[in-house]
């Protein structure tokens, strides 16, 4: 890309923000235009399902206004209507047009809204934007029965926040355990128990067939497939997301489960890249094409892309990691353990601090750490380092992930000794 090239970024979430920021940090001098369809400054979403629901003073803006001014990052509060690839322009819904030399699609995802009868009743909310979170926060103090449809990360985080307000909370999930798509049975069970201990009811393995309302159009309950009914005057729907691919698809760019990109995050049009929740990329760790919904993925892909656009191309290989916080329990996940065939639990779940090591074909693929940050850090490090760890080794008495990671880094990496002078350097992700 030429030094003076214009970069237009569609989507002002965490990924879009980071591309703009990293381009400037790397000295890109041309115009950088960040287009977002929400009002206000770019903000972080993770607190929306946690502290933001309880504490209105929670600050979520990523950076103040002066940050963008100082760096000449132009913020446009509008929506992109279409991409004209032949003239390299995007048409905005406010009637304007922006020319680009490179276009970054960081469009994120949209919440899935299940087509259930009654889904449009008053008192049914979803959670994605600051607006959504404010709506939920406003309603929480006056509601008496909260039903959460979907026991994914968002649903469980909202349940944890709601438990602190004393509202009667029920979580309804079609699968048989919470966060089933993301974590192992051991971790799922532990988290489910935490919620039950706080008084939350979990209806697992049950599907919603209908939402009941009264004559004013307000929701009154959730009807399940087995005929039972959960009373509710506030319902949160958190049943997953769909990547926002329409702009790309309409422009004739390859789309699969997300906007398809190569290892360098380029779409089928070399002038257009895609990052974050909306991008389906070749995953260096699983050997498959994946799409990940996480801060880490958005931010690290943004950095990887900014590096390429400023003349330092590299394939995207960062180790995925995720976190959730529910009550005072921190769950940190490194790698991708879905589809594991074996596991080892390190530590005793009864103490509230343990890690679950997940293996595929005998080799470590992911680690879930519950209140065990040292294990998490070690896992990120050794998954990045690529030294295979097999299950037999972890079954030995007194096996410690941090010790193993430290030992093997030293023996494999001749520069590790220098890094280890104060055991400080994070060799696990490019920052």
């Amino acid at each position, binding site marked *: 890309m030429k030094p003076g090239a214009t970069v237009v970024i569609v989507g002002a979430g965490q990924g879009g923000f980071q591309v703009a920021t990293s381009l400037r940090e790397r000295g890109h001098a041309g115009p950088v235009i960040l287009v977002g369809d929400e009002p206000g400054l770019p903000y972080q979403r993770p607190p929306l399902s946690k502290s933001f629901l309880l504490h209105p003073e929670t600050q979520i803006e990523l950076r103040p206004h002066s940050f963008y001014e*100082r760096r000449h990052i132009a913020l446009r509060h509008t929506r992109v209507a279409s991409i004209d690839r032949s003239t390299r322009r995007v048409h905005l819904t406010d009637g304007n047009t922006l020319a680009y030399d490179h276009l970054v699609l960081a469009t994120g995802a949209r919440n899935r809204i299940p087509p259930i009868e009654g889904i449009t009743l008053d008192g049914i909310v979803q959670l994605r934007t600051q607006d959504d979170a404010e709506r939920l926060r406003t309603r929480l103090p006056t509601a008496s029965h909260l039903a959460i449809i979907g026991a994914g990360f968002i649903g469980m985080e909202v349940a944890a926040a709601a438990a602190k307000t004393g509202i009667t909370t029920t979580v309804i999930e079609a699968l048989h355990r919470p966060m089933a798509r993301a974590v192992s049975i051991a971790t799922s069970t532990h988290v489910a128990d935490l919620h039950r201990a706080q008084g939350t009811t979990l209806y697992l393995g049950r599907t919603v067939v209908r939402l009941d309302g009264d004559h004013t159009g307000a929701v009154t309950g959730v009807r399940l497939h087995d005929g039972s009914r959960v009373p509710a005057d506030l319902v949160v729907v958190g049943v997953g997301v769909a990547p926002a691919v329409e702009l790309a698809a309409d422009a004739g760019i390859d789309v699969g489960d997300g906007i398809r990109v190569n290892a360098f995050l380029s779409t089928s049009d070399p002038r257009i890249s895609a990052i974050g929740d909306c991008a389906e990329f070749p995953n260096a760790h699983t050997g498959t094409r994946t799409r990940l919904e996480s801060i880490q993925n958005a931010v690290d892909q943004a950095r990887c892309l900014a590096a390429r656009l400023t003349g330092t191309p590299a394939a995207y290989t960062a180790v995925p990691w995720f976190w959730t916080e529910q009550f005072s329990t921190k769950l940190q996940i490194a790698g991708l353990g879905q589809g594991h065939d074996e596991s080892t639990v390190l530590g005793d779940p009864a103490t509230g601090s343990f890690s679950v090591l997940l293996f595929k074909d005998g080799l470590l693929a992911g680690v879930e750490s519950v209140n065990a940050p040292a294990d998490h850090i070690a896992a*990120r490090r050794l998954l990045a380092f690529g030294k295979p760890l097999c299950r037999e080794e972890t079954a030995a008495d007194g096996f410690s992930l941090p010790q193993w990671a430290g030992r093997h880094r030293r023996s494999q990496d001749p520069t590790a000794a220098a890094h280890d002078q104060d055991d400080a350097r*994070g060799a696990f992700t490019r920052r």
Partner: protein
Amino acid sequence: MTKIIYRQPDGTRVTINAAPGDSVMSAALAADVDGIVGECGGNMMCATCHVYVEDPGAGQLPAMTDDEDQMLACTDAPRTTASRLSCQLPAGDTIDTMVVTVPGSRT
């Protein structure tokens, strides 16, 4: 109010008056101080708000928790005895002035 002085690797300084409730990290983000990223929003998940505290033994700062200690093992810049996560350092009435050095900037 706590006066927080951020020293950059190039010798420049930024001084901020932080209110109780702010952390050294949140005050830095709000004032656009280079080098403090705070990727996880102050949840001790990312170690991107690492700073070196001047006079860490002065006793004004909250003790380091195990979690912070463990997360400091994955900072970009080397860890020293002065290393802290700035999201864990609250401004408050009991601390008059704090001086922290920001590690080299990231890309």
